[in-house]
């Protein structure tokens, strides 16, 4: 039997992120009815702990002013001090989980499975599904979890379990954190700059990805957007190449948009990109690769070269 199951609760100053209840659903993949312990760290987290006690059988509270900002280097030490060695710990695979988990698995000497999109547990074996190559290939991986597990769960793949109704117990572990000094000191958050256009305000987005191939070709997308009365947004590589401003980037590390219509032009459909598209828009994907993952989420697809297709579409729209 695997050890006690834990879920790390991500929150913003006491407000739980969606992942908090997604992990309730994810944890149910272990033995039905298995007790799950939520771990809540931060400063003044009593209200959040009480909230979580409606969804988790047990809540471990670690309240300390020094933990008011979740610095993964510090929290790794805290977790090492409080977790049993054979703990199964579920962590959201976001920028915090990526920072925390690989090192935690080494320190606690448990296998690490990153960015899990689905899994089953059979006896002492975890069978997980992961993706490689930005979702172009899927893999099954297996590991023995009898001596513990660190598992990063992809945000958004499990439906948040809103059923509540649990009367969990809050246990104060604040005194057990041990020494909190590390070689990495949090200074401040620098907020993203606003850009020339606000893509979050547009109902229609013509979004370009690496398939645009060249900076000069952005003009082709701009002409289509102008004809449609839309705004040009993009995937990350376009911003990395400095072809468009960061404020035009859709995705987890960019903007969250809620348009009515989203044209994905030469975008493969990685989860970090899709993570920025909310509100169930009508997605049209144009891609020359018929197996591109974007076609799994789009309503309508066209297999074509965007550099040829976009001008044709623009011409026809202009002629309407």
């Amino acid at each position, binding site marked *: 039997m695997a050890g006690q199951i834990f879920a790390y609760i991500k929150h913003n100053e006491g407000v739980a992120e969606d992942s908090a209840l997604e992990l309730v659903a994810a944890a149910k993949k272990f033995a039905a009815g298995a007790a799950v312990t939520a771990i809540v760290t931060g400063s003044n987290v009593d209200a959040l702990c009480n909230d979580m006690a409606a969804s988790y059988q047990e809540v471990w509270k670690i309240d300390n002013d020094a933990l008011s900002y979740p610095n993964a280097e510090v929290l790794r030490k805290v977790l090492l001090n409080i977790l049993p060695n054979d703990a199964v710990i579920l962590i959201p695979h976001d920028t915090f989980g990526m920072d925390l988990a*690989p*090192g935690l*698995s080494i320190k606690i000497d448990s296998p690490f*499975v990153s960015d899990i999109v689905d899994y089953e547990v059979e006896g002492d074996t975890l069978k997980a599904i992961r993706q490689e190559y930005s979702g172009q290939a899927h893999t099954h991986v*297996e590991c023995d979890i009898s001596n513990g597990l660190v598992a990063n769960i992809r945000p958004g793949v499990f439906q948040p379990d809103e059923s509540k109704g649990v009367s969990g117990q809050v246990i104060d572990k604040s005194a057990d954190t041990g020494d909190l000094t590390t070689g990495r000191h949090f200074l401040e958050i620098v907020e*993203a700059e606003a850009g020339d256009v606000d893509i979050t305000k547009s109902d229609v987005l013509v979004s370009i990805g690496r398939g645009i191939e060249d900076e000069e070709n952005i003009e082709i997308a701009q002409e289509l957007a102008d004809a449609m009365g839309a705004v040009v947004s993009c995937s990350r590589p376009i911003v990395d190449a400095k072809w468009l401003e960061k404020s035009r*980037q859709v995705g987890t590390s960019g903007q969250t948009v809620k348009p009515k*219509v989203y044209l994905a032009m030469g975008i493969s459909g990685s989860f970090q990109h899709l993570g920025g598209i909310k509100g169930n828009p009508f997605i049209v994907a144009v891609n020359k690769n018929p197996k591109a993952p974007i076609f799994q989420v789009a309503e309508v697809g066209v297999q074509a070269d965007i550099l040829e297709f976009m001008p044709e579409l623009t011409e026809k729209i202009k002629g309407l």
Partner: protein
Amino acid sequence: MEILVCVKRVPDTAENEIEVRKDGTDIVRDDLVYSVNEWDNYAVEEAIQIVEKVGGSVTVVTVGDEDSEEVLRREMAMGADNGVLLSDPAFVGSDGKAIAGILKAEIEKGNYNLIFTGAQADDGAGQVGGMLAAMMDVPYASLVNHIEVLDDKKLKVGREIEGGNQEMHEIDLPCVLSIQTGINEPRYVGIRGIRKVASVEIPVHGASDIGIAADAVGAGGAKVKLVDYFMPELGEGAEMLEGSTEEIVDKLIELLKAKGGLK
């Protein structure tokens, strides 16, 4: 600053359509175009820029087969001073933890202040950097998109977090940083640059050279085992528009009108 950058040779996702072999044991590798993992290229550029400012050297290292030498040469053509290839039949099939262990063994033979990895590999799990730091017992920061050398003991680093916001930290040296794309603009490497380093000697270190027990690494030592590759059952999937380009454009325009996509 003595900087070591870990780099990996991967199939270039921008150049290939990845397909899974029928027996599920691997992706189809014939005719694949390989290149250096995108994140690692940014890491090498960052290391070169730091050394240009404060002095020191850049070493690139990879765990791989003999073909992996080409990515070392490419990064040396960019400006890395040294390359080391860690290669041994015993390393084949290693999981992330074993790769980190092999890298650590090589690092301990040198005298590095700063170690870079990419934030993730296209065929990886975003784990090697964090594991390596934990094994070395040095501080770590992932998804780094800004680095400032404060003095010979400290850096100021920015981590890219959700929404494009940035988390600033001070971090003690030596440390391991995983580098996020967009931190810089990697310089272009031309054929001439590659030719210049074509005959530079690249040392190859095997398990016994760096003191690694062969059974601790490779497929046999992997705690997390890759069972198979598969293509997911396509759910509903997109309705693919077929016909001549003109017919497709007409259909699409009708759909866009209906959905409020045309003003």
